[in-house]
């Protein structure tokens, strides 16, 4: 694994291990290919990555159509937790999954910092 790949993987590991209730994270290219991931066992990272790219694309378009400005985050809440997507550099997306009991403010804050770190490495 290249040094850059190790750094990206390290940023994801730190996010998952240091933020309570964050259960997984992945970096996905804008066209839906996985770049790096720390996802729960059994997760199909290819499918998850493709869906993340589609969600981000829809979010960008929706924000534009509804004059909400440049997309910053896509937020999905299910009965068992959250999915958060945010841009990480010009061509990638950070996807974070968190449990239902997560402190959302903490998750968003740490995710934003991770996205900024990733942007410097991508």
């Amino acid at each position, binding site marked *: 694994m290249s040094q850059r790949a190790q750094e990206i993987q390290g940023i994801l590991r730190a996010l998952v291990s240091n933020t309570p209730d964050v259960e997984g994270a992945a970096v996905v290219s*804008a*066209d*839906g*290919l996985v770049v790096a991931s720390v996802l729960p066992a059994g997760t199909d990272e*290819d*499918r998850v*990555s*493709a*869906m993340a*790219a*589609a*969600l981000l*694309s*829809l979010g960008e*378009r929706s924000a534009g159509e509804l004059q909400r400005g440049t997309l910053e985050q896509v937020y999905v809440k299910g009965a068992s937790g959250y999915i958060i997507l945010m841009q990480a550099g010009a061509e990638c997306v950070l996807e974070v999954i968190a449990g239902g009991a997560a402190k959302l403010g903490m998750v968003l804050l740490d995710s934003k910092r991770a996205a900024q770190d990733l942007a410097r490495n991508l």
Partner: protein
Amino acid sequence: MQRAGEEPVAAGKLIVVGPGEAGKSTLIARLSADAVNLAVNGRTVAMDHGLVRHGALTISLVGVPGQARFAPVREALAQRAAGAIWVHPEGEVPDPHTAALLCPGGGPPLPYVVYVNQRSGSGDGTGFAPPEGLAPPRRLIHGSLVERQANLAALLDAAAELLGAPGAPREEEVIG
């Protein structure tokens, strides 16, 4: 939105399916002046959408991403579709993933028409043999999206038929 004095307009959703780079986005863009394509690097990653007025009918065309990894997106977009337009690159074997999409949730198959895209312009008239277990298309239409002979009027007639437009023919028909 219906304005005062306008006749009510029937609307229906058709999904536009087919393998990657078959011409789905191009087809929707040719049919709808206001088409939206959500793409990255020229490949659809989320969906296409276009509205087409055909007589008293408004057809909502929803194009699905063709690349294999977008299977869950395709399945989501196929929900509540009344039928499908299958864009088939001439000379290729019909894509089994596309065929599976025509039977959402293992339920009854969606009615569909096939648009054989003669991209090279040198098509030999080769048709379309549906994969095993799938009923033949309602209509098989040949056209070229990169040339003038796109045959889009015939395709719109077939699309209207899928949505049960009054007076639309039901029999299988080949238009070449």
